[in-house]
């Protein structure tokens, strides 16, 4: 969103919840996520005066840094943000500490306990702690166990653990990880983060659906003919080849972000706005979801991989030519699939989901296409009547758009489609917070509404199990279709919809 001068009448009207005195401990503090997302989000919370004065951030990693070195590294990484407000950074930086910790070494974790007590005394953080596991996924289970063994999770009201994605690699490993995590603490202490849920516009899907009476009566199979969910990136794999080669688009984007968007779009209205009520409904809808053809998944799923592209002046390398990528890699950078949700609301309505790297545009959106009018009374200026569509734009240009037919001016009675638009920029003109700002605050407030519960994660993995098994056992049945960089993906993905007489929306 475009940042504009603040509305002076808006200042002070936002009702922010108060975060209790707190020490946030980040494991993996020397990693990319810490300086790219987490510390900037915390600095933003600090600037918005939403962190309590009794706050400390303790970075932990294996590197033998001192407090000052850690502060220096963070200052380096956030240089452009600090330049806007150096005084605020000086105050914030005084709350940063560092402790060299290897979670696999029990002695280190015991020493960490001692350091936390010192910080409690020095910063009055009252033993209230949030542990953020920003480490390699293979250490999530052992990390939780190490914290539990050191007694750092024994108080369910004052200690909590945030776990980054991916939570498991498949259904079995997610179940196993959940078992370990549950043996270390209570479910309400565990915050499985999915930063898409921190986006204002994803949360707005719930408000749009459940705060308005006009949508809910038509939000079902009687009026909606199909749903498309897209998360498109223009960037390639960049520096993440090591991780991406073992993950691919299905694990990296579909199982978590796109599935969460599907759950929020398709869930039943919760009885109240309460974390468990909302997560119950999301879990139920994921348990009712299935691939359109579970027996022969190749009929409902297309995998692709970006090839070279770009222009003569600015050529773009293909995925297999990227540094760190196997030249014969069969990792997918694009996935498109068709799903169904077998319940009363959605029976028979196809949900088409797609994501990919190096696509033509960066955007995330949910498109609900409504059934056509039963009788066409008018000539359509575009050849045939256009189905009504509600487009929920998640990013960029956040907002919503409703497409419907109107009379084309003139003496005849021809119809043509027009778009009615709502734009966050035009209506509010305030930049919305990064997803991590909201989610870090929520975790410190012990509010799990926007975090995924164990049964949701497992249901999401179970949904894609036939595909993951197929990729594992007989990958040739789910071949990789190359597509030119900066296009809308392989032609096979278009054919997937063409079989149903549909087209992907070209935004």
């Amino acid at each position, binding site marked *: 969103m475009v940042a*504009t*001068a603040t*509305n*002076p*009448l*808006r*200042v*002070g*009207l936002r009702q922010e919840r*108060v975060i209790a005195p707190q020490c946030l401990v980040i494991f993996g503090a020397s990693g990319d996520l810490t300086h790219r997302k987490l510390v900037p989000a915390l600095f933003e919370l600090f600037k918005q005066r939403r962190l309590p004065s009794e706050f400390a951030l303790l970075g932990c990693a294996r590197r033998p840094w001192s407090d000052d070195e850690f502060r220096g590294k963070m200052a380096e990484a956030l240089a452009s943000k600090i330049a806007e407000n150096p005084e605020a950074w000086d105050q914030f930086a005084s709350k940063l500490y560092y402790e060299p910790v290897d979670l696999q070494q029990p002695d280190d974790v015991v020493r960490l306990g001692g350091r936390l007590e010192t910080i409690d005394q020095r910063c009055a953080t009252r033993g209230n702690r949030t542990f953020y596991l920003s480490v390699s996924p293979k250490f999530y289970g052992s990390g939780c166990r190490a914290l539990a063994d050191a007694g750092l999770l024994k108080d369910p009201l004052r200690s909590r653990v945030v776990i980054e994605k991916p939570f498991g690699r498949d259904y079995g490993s997610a179940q196993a990880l959940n078992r370990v995590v549950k043996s270390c603490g209570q479910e309400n202490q565990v915050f499985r983060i999915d930063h898409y849920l921190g986006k204002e516009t994803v949360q707005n899907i719930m408000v749009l659906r459940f705060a308005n009476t006009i949508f809910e009566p038509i939000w079902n199979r009687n009026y909606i003919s199909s749903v498309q969910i897209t998360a498109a990136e223009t960037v390639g794999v960049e520096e993440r080849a090591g991780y991406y080669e073992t993950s691919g688009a299905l694990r990296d984007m579909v199982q978590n972000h796109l599935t969460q968007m599907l759950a929020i779009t398709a869930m039943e209205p919760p009885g109240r706005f309460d974390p468990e009520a909302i997560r119950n409904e999301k879990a139920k809808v994921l348990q009712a979801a299935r691939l359109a053809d579970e027996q022969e998944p190749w009929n409902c799923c297309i995998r692709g991989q970006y090839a070279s592209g770009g222009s003569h002046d600015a050529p773009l390398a293909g995925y297999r030519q990227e540094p760190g990528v196997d030249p014969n890699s069969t990792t997918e950078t694009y996935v498109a699939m068709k799903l169904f949700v077998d319940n009363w609301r959605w029976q028979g309505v196809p949900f088409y989901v797609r994501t990919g790297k190096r696509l033509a545009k960066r955007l995330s959106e949910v498109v609900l296409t409504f059934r056509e009018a039963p009788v066409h009374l008018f000539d359509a200026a575009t050849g045939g009547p256009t189905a009504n569509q509600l487009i929920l734009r998640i990013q960029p240009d956040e907002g919503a758009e409703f497409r419907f037919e109107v009379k084309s001016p003139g003496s005849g009675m021809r119809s043509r489609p027009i778009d009615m638009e709502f734009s966050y*920029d*035009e*209506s*509010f*003109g*305030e930049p919305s917070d990064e997803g991590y700002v909201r989610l870090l605050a929520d975790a410190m407030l012990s509010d799990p509404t926007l975090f995924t519960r164990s049964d949701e994660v497992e249901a999401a993995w179970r949904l894609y199990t036939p595909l993951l098994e197929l990729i594992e056992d007989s990958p040739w049945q789910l071949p990789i279709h190359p597509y030119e960089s900066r296009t809308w993906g392989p032609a096979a993905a278009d054919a997937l919809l063409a079989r149903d007489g549909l087209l992907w929306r070209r935004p």
Partner: protein
Amino acid sequence: MSPQLTLQTPLELEPAEVPTYLEQLWSTEQQGNTGSGANTFCLLIWQPAWAEQQLVRSGRLNGPITGQQSDALLAAGRQAVIDTDLPLSTPPTAGELIAAIAQLEGENLADDLRGQYIDPALSELQPRRLITLAPTINADQRLETLVAAYCPLPEEGGGTTACGDVVVLRGGQNALRDGMSILQPLLPPSMPSWVWWNGFLDEAPDLMEQLACAPRRLIVDTAVGNPRHCLNLLRARVESGQAVNDLNWLRLRSWRETLAMVFDPPNRRDALCHITQLDVDVEGHHPTQGLLMAAWIADRLGWQLQRTEISEEGVAAQFSRHDGADIRFQLMSVPTGQPSVHAGQIVGLRLICQPEQGQGVCVILCAESGGCMRLEGGGMASLELHEEIVSVKHASPEMDVARLLSGGHDSTNPLLSAAAPLAAKLLS
């Protein structure tokens, strides 16, 4: 949800015995391992309920007296406005109405359950101690001190939930003054204490001084009492640094939110720099809410007050903008057929913005309960008009107080801190 009674029949004790009794009640020996006193907050309520007492006495309302703002009380109050020939715009619990009913005959009696009738919104917050001061209309009535626990005692099979107690001091005002000495020992220093002055702000100043001393947090309603006294008291308390919350300010929430919403789209924000006129219409002759609204706008937009003039019709003032241009402010009292429960609620607001070049803008906010014909009239055809309807559905005072208590609010809202002194100045 309907209000609930305490689970235990209140016990009448000598005032001096109350602190010892309650100390023993919550001692480890007495409680064993089965229950504990909630470690939350204490709430002292000044609960005169003058209108209810007079309506019951004169036979216009059936008892018991609860101190709650019930539908029956409001209906009886509205009927009494008609019976006593007061203007129809008189609110159903207004001071002039209470004075008029006091002249009527009647000696009806009813149970007085003030302090024992607890609104669920408050009891859900599990207060450790609710202390109610219940002055009676009989000024000579002796002091009665009642005590009741909130949760079943162990010998009655009590559970492990956090418990609280209620203390009621009831009697004539002189008797209540005598009983004030027991209050301090009843307020554990380890938890916050709130004082809700649920009466006229200009009554019993000495009692308010004793009850609402810092660091106790104060809740008032500046719609109740003499307007100038209300605003001066609010200003003095804010300036002293005490945490003060005003229910009248809370009821402005939807007005402030709606006005901010009008200027959320960036292309409208420039108009805020070119305001030339602000009009506020309020119900009846109680300008405090309208002045707080105007003061909030002036503070947010950096206006300086130049002069103010008070008349029968309302308040007129002149502000100057950052660029030195003048802004005319007028607050008008307007009659309404069905007055709100609270005196002086805003019914309409108009902002006129006239840039030197380009089209002017007129913003009109109008209460959903009535029209704002006065604000809609008068040569604005050339202006771009934005008109919004403001919801004026107010929660009960108990709900508002519960919201304040649950939100912590250990300091005065900074917007109120800035607006209160300016609002008081507008009426000085």
